[in-house]
Each structure stands twice: as C-alpha cells, then as structure tokens.
C-alpha cells in the first residue's frame, strides 16, 4: 500500500468569508427566483389592508396630534410585513432544503454556526427591506410620511427584521415539514403581529390588554418603527430599542446554540 503525501489542510484566510458570501448570495438568489411570491405578493397584501382600513376608519382621529389614521397605519403595516417576511424567508428556505434533502450539501461543508447565522439573517433582511421599500414607494405619493428620526427607524428595522430572521432559522431547525412552519406562522407570528398595535394605539385598549401588549415583543418593534416616522409613540423610543435589542440577543443566543450543537440537524 503506498503512502500518499498529502499536504496539510490549511485554513486559508478569508475562506470562511467566501463561504459566508456564497451562502448569502445563494439565499438571496433563492428568494429572487420567486420574487412574485416573496416580494410582490406580500406588498399587495399589505396595500390591501391599507386600502380597506383607511376606508373603513376614514375620518377617525389617530392617537397622535397632527397624524391622520391612514398615516398612523402605514408604519405599522410596513413593520408587520418586515416581521412576517423576515421570518418566512429563513424558515421556508431551511424547511425546503430539509424536505428536499439538499441541506446535506451545506451541512457537510466547513461552514460554522456564525456563517450560517449571518447568511440567513442577511438574506432575510434584504427581502424584508425590499418589501418595505416597495410598500413605501407605492404609498408615499398618497400618504404624507415624515421621517423624524431616521436612525431610530433604521435601527428598529434591523432589530426587528434581524430577530424575526433568527426566529425563522429556529423554526426551520425545529420543524420537520412545511406544516410545522405553517403552525408557527399561524399560531405565533400572525396573532402577535396583529395584536401589537398595528391598527390602533395601545392607549385606546382596556387596561388588561394594554398591559398584555407590553409583553409582546412585536409591540415594541412597531411602536419604535412608528417613532422613526412621527417622532411620537406609545412608549419611549429607548424602551422600544432596548426591548427589541434584548429580544434579538435572546433569540440569537438560542439560535447560535442550536447551530453550534447541531440540535435537531446533526442527529
């Protein structure tokens, strides 16, 4: 038997970066390939909500002085779309790869938990940003939207979109089939995003619901995002930023632990 002299395996500098960039680009191409489902459809859904509610509630005063109900509604709907699409992107990509079985090609590769995490989050954020930008582009001619605190607006987008992208990864890891993702979406993401003050100010709620809302992380995402536009909100922007940052840290810790330990993936 001949001994082959194999050179030692060098971990080339930046090779992880190439892996991360490749995975990110692959994830972006995946949702771009079905842009109609991943961007156009959610934009249309959100615009329908806007049309219906703006009509139904026409003339109703909003919670904030100088802000019409329609104006009040737009940031919440945009944030709701960010929440739902950031989640859907990582969750459906992972479950598709799992069900098709092609996740093995990624699992065999020398990509670590941080690269997986970063790539899925980056792709989900890009999709969420496209949906948000398309919605804003369509409504700005009709709805007056000042941007009083652009930094807060951007920070809230990143924190919220990031958290939901991470939750999507967790859902993808835990789920074994499409039904499980649907259950996550229907019993967790949808109710929490609808009950988070998109359509109303929480100050108009009965005390019990008002207090319950304050434990809903999505409430802070929407409230803080609205602050970015109007400079006014139900709770202070600092509270929203801290709650959202805390939520992001918590879900990221869980997700990174899952990825690093191979939880449910490398069984």
């Amino acid at each position, binding site marked *: 038997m001949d001994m082959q002299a194999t050179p030692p395996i060098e971990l080339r500098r930046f090779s992880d970066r190439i892996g991360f960039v490749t995975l990110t680009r692959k994830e972006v191409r995946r949702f771009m390939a079905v842009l109609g489902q991943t961007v156009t459809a959610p934009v249309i859904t959100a615009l329908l909500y806007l049309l219906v509610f703006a009509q139904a509630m026409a003339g109703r005063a909003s919670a904030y002085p100088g802000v019409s109900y329609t104006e009040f509604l737009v940031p919440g709907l945009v944030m709701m779309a960010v929440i739902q699409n950031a989640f859907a992107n990582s969750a459906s990509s992972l479950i598709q790869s799992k069900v098709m*079985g092609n996740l093995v090609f990624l699992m065999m590769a020398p990509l670590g938990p941080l690269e997986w995490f970063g790539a899925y989050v980056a792709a989900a954020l890009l999709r969420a940003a496209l949906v948000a930008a398309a919605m804003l582009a369509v409504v700005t001619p009709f709805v007056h939207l000042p941007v009083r605190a652009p930094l807060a607006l951007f920070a809230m987008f990143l924190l919220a979109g990031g958290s939901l992208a991470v939750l999507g990864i967790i859902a993808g890891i835990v789920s074994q089939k499409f039904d499980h993702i649907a259950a996550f979406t229907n019993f967790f993401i949808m109710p929490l995003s609808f009950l988070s003050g998109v359509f109303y100010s929480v100050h108009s709620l009965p005390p019990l619901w008002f207090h319950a809302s304050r434990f809903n992380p999505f409430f802070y995402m929407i409230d803080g995002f609205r602050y970015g536009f109007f400079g006014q909100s139900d709770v202070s922007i600092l509270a929203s930023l801290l709650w959202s940052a805390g939520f992001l840290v918590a879900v990221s810790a869980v997700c990174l632990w899952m990825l690093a330990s191979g939880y449910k993936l490398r069984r």
Partner: protein
Amino acid sequence: MNDSRALSPAIEISGLSKRYGTVEALKGVSFAIQRGEFFGLLGPNGAGKSTLINIVAGLVRQDQGRVAVLGYDTVKDWRRARRAIGVVPQELVFDPFFTVEQVLEIQAGYYGCGREVRPWIEQLIERLDLGGKRRASMRALSGGQKRRVMLAQALVHRPPVVILDEPTAGVDVELRRSLWRFMRELHDEGTTVVLTTHYLDEAQDLCSRIAIIDRGAVRVIESTEQLLARHPFRFLRLKLADGAQLPDALRPLVTGHKNGALELKLERDRHPIGAVFAALKSAGVDIEDVHTREPDLEDIFVELTAARVPAVQQG
C-alpha cells in the same frame, strides 16, 4: 511541521457507537483506512454503513468514539476534517432552484474556493459528461445525471479523501462502467477512495481492501485477496445422467440446484474433488457434465453475514 499528522491514516475510526432509539446502528466500530487505499465498505441493508459515513461527514453526531480524517478530529477540528473529505450521499438529493454550473460554483464557495477552482470544475463537468447540461436546471436532469452532479459536488474542493455511498445504485450499465473508470482515475491521481456498494463484483474488481459490517459491527476487514482466499472451499457443479441419484454421503454438501445441475460446496482439505468422484463411482452414478467454480466475494459475503444455519455445514 507535523510529522505525526503526515503519517496519519486517511480515516481513523475508534470506538464509534450510535444508537437510534432502540436500534444500535453502530456498536463500537474501530478501524483505519490508509492513504491511497481503494477501500470497500460492504454489508447488508441496515448494517450501519451510511450511519458510519454520515458520522465521518459530520452529518450525524456519534454517541461515543472518535473519527479523524488525515489526523483531524471530525468534532474538534471539524473545519479541516470537512475540507479534507468529499462525500457523495446515498440518497439522490438536489437543489431545484439552480443549474448544474451554479450548484457546483455554490458548493465550491462553501469550501472557501473562489475563481481558482473554475478550471477544475470545468474538468469535472467534462469528465462526468455533463457538458450538455451545464445550464440545465437541476430539476430537469435524469436520475443518473443528478447522481453525476452529486459526484462533482463532492469533488469541487479537490478533497484528498472521497467517500461514495452506493454511487452505482440504480444506474445503467454504461454509466456504471464510466463511474468505475472515473473512480479508478481519481484513485490513480492519489485520492483515497471509500466505496459502499451492494454489487459485490464491483467491490471485488475495484477495492484493494474490504470491510464487511453487519448489524453495527465489523465482521471482517482484510485485503480483497485475503478475503477471497479466506474460505478454503470451492464449488463443484455436477450434472448427473438421467435417473441417477446422488449418494447419501454427498447430500449434505449440496448448496443449490441450477438448470438440472447440482452445486456442491467442497472444503478443500476435507472434501478433495478426487474423493467426491470416487464416491460417485463406487455408487455407480453416471456423470453427464462437471464444472468447478472458485468462491467469489458474494459467497464469502453470504457466509459472513447470513444468520448461522448449522445443519447444512455438517457434512
């Protein structure tokens, strides 16, 4: 700088166990595959071959034991270990969103390879006869074409160790031959090749050393030659004249009937062929035709993995 590593085996498996619920898929398996070997991993369905391969590939975590690829531990030094191997999974899986070329570029990227591997990818496409399909979507390929893309995917990063889990299952004769040629070329270029297959003639032709595993344990691990010489028996096929009966003394040696002929399994030292003929002659049995056959891997495989049925052997 690392002399001990330079001599370490291609794959070293020690005390590997894996349990799925109540199924013990691997029961403390240990063996090593040396660099430059063409190694066969054989065993019946459910023996634990894929479980073993998946642990080496990092797809499944072992309960106990360790695996090192070129001396790199697959758990502690997983980045280097994974870079050192390419694995073709048993199941036919693919990503329907991409074309053949895209799939290969993406896979190379996962391994940190950039533009510099383009010529190699080009070569793989040519050698695996995928040239006409490079821009075809993965979902538009036939099963055999998908299998070849999986092979290319396992090789994009030029791994020194390659593991193929039943690459020739469900593949037509021509493709099987071209896969054999391809695997031989890879091996000639210095790659360590590990192959699992249920076609024993394939393993006999290609592999220089073979491990037979069964119910989660290694039954035997030997060079193919040793394995073939291991069982000192041969087969004698006899066609008797019409109406003739085999003498009772020879009956226990019969292992089969085929086209009106009887197959007898003879242990070289206990049943010399001359003695068999003498027994036939003294019983006055006329023979129409005879034929002898040396045992092949299949006979040995059956011998080693079949549940033991003692009665037959006690001639």
